[in-house]
């Protein structure tokens, strides 16, 4: 689903690499958790996957489409939720969703059904006709999640999706992620909540100082040591 080959990125021509020669792939049908300390390069990597940043070197393909050479095809297959919810604050929730429905060309019937489903699920039906300006952080997050899933993309890319969500919404989102993957789709998300990663993810990647230092299932990361928690593994790996 995602294929990352030799990707590097540095900011401001300072030469310090935010992401350094990244190589990995994420398979269809799996939930992939992307972990790392603050400033390790998680958001940079995610932004390169979805096309908000251009890699200095290397290539990224989404469902076979190179996101630099065939950006539109790649984007059609991605639903992205950024880490901070910045949306047009002077349009209403429903206007925002209809806008996305139009630009992703979601047919009216399907759109109607999905909008209703998500709004009800996230308890946003009443707020949908209000300006997004009046929404709380969590509500903005939920309307962005709804917008990102409206076209039922094969790949979800979520940057810290649980931040700002209440326990119920967070639980619902995790269920959605699980269901989505059961249909053969892929979820790629970053998080600091290691318990979530441990329980939810099929595979985990840990990035540290721009380099991928570990990747695999929980068992593979434990290397046979059954009692070790993800927290311990994480702390050990990122100590240097």
């Amino acid at each position, binding site marked *: 689903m995602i294929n990352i080959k030799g990707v590097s990125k540095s900011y401001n021509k300072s030469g310090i690499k935010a992401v350094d020669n990244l190589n990995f792939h994420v398979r269809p049908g799996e939930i992939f958790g992307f972990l790392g300390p603050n400033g390790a390069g998680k958001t940079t990597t995610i*932004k390169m996957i979805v096309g908000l*940043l251009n890699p200095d070197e290397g290539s990224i393909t989404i469902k076979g489409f190179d996101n630099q050479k065939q950006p539109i095809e790649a984007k059609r297959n991605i639903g992205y939720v950024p880490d901070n919810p910045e949306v047009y604050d002077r349009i209403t929730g429903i206007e925002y969703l209809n806008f996305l429905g139009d630009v992703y060309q979601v047919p*009216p019937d399907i759109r*109607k059904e999905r909008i209703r489903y998500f709004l009800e699920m996230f308890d946003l039906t009443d707020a949908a006709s209000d300006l997004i300006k009046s929404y709380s952080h969590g509500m903005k997050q939920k309307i962005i999640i709804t917008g990102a899933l409206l076209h039922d993309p094969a790949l979800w890319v979520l940057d810290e999706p649980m931040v700002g969500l209440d326990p119920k919404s967070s639980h619902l989102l995790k269920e959605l992620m699980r269901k989505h993957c059961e249909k053969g789709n892929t979820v790629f998300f970053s998080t600091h909540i290691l318990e979530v990663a441990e329980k939810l993810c099929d595979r985990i990647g840990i990035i540290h100082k721009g380099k991928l230092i570990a990747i695999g299932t929980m068992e593979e990361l434990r290397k046979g040591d059954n009692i070790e928690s993800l927290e311990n593994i994480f702390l050990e790996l990122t100590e240097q």
Partner: protein
Amino acid sequence: MRVFMSLLKLNLNLNFGISDLKYRFTKEKKKRWEPVLVVLGVIIGFVPLIVFYSIFLNGVFSVGLTLNQPELVLVIAFLSGQLVVFVFGIFYIMSTFYFSKDLNALIPLPLKPYQVLGSKMVVVMVNEYITLLPILLPSVIIFGTRTGQGFLYWIKALLLILASPVIPLVLDALLVLVLMRFINLRRSKDLLSVVVGLLGMFIGLGINFIVRRIPKGNEQEFLRNILTSQSGMIKLISQRFPPSLWATLGLSRQGLEGAGYLALFIVVSILLFLVLIWLGNKIFYKGVLSGQEIVRKKKAFSTEEANRKYGKFSTPVLAILRREWMLLLRTPVYFLNGLVGVIIGPFILVFMFFTGNQSSELDQLISVLQNESLSVYVTLGGLGLALFTAGMNVAASTAVSREGKTFWIAKMIPVPPKQQVMGKYINGFSVSEIGVLLTAILLAAFLKISIVKTLVIIILGTLGAMLLSVLNLLIDVLHPKLVWNNPTEAMKQNMNGLLGMLISMLVLFILAGITILMLIKGLSEWLIYIVLGAVMCIASIISFKGLFAVAERQYMKIEV
């Protein structure tokens, strides 16, 4: 006091962008020229105005001398200065006290309400000096030099100028404090900004109108008439607002009398400030906090309504166009500068050209212009004005910048940049087109231009507006200003807006040059129109190709 001073220091730093300037001059050297350019622009814009005003005041002084009231020049300056501060101060104080974003960060800090209020008040005051100095300084200098005042006068003048914003601003602040305690104006913040913006425009128009009423060459005479016949009015106003009179007398009278008025002015200023601090400490936070709740309609859709709203469907370009219009209409700054500007602009243009003259002269002018042999010039002049209105519009030249932090959505959606800029283009062009249509119709009505010629103006104006909009949008696509915290920065403090106007003027000059050349060559009227239309069409097509190519590259290149 230390807490207050450190808060004040921070507020002043933010207000004047001192750290930002330092950063620009030391780290981000590429952007060094921007503030320099802004300062230069302000100087170029304001120096002629101040010179004109000083000449006017000098006239007032001379008239005052003949009336045996040389201090008239000081009354006028202090009165108008304090009046300006009072009128605009209300909105300024409302926005800094209640609408500024930093309140959310300041309220949780262990600060007394009066410290927050006091520091904000001082910042507003310091800003008002920038308004007051050009109003007060010329009259103080004229009076001082022409009556040959000594050292003491200049000291008194300095004290008075420093204290002059206090009284009007404190009155504003008291008014606002009490008002906000009881009425929740935050809810209608958008409406308020639009009202203030419109008020500003109308005041500008009014001043323009009055200045144009002054007969050329007879300014002295005119002034004498106003001052003698209406000195009652000036007296009346200064009686209603005695501080201006105190300031004047404190400055113009000698010895103890002068010192007494000066002391009165300063003591009243200090007392009022203390009252504000006292009252502010009691009710400021209450007013701020009562406005924090967010209004929601809390109205669920009916099934029918939901079906209608959830199931709309249109193409990506139309969806983007609709979004652009919604944001333009609903964001006060965009609405005022993007739309209201092109609607009021044509009226201002017509006013400027046709209200300076006496009405009999105007009738004469109109009848001369109706002469068939002049019709080609009238049409071309009308076209020029229509395109001028279109070119002054900043809707296209800030179209990408306005996306700001939401630009990630533009990068994410699977809509080719070509289509995205197309949606923006149609939006910017239609705004310009409103300007073209209004100018054409107003001119036609005013100068009694024939329907055929009006249509020529409209058609050529439309073609020109198409070209200008592409070029304006191109500027913003090339170098959008995406980092901003306040929509004002995206529209009014955006170099692209200014650059767009300059490019539009350049295009107008080129078109005017071509036209003049054709007129000299003696080309027939209709041939001139056809050539102009063709030139604009071809230029539009070429620019469109450029715009699309640049958009494809830039949307990819811009990282967010």
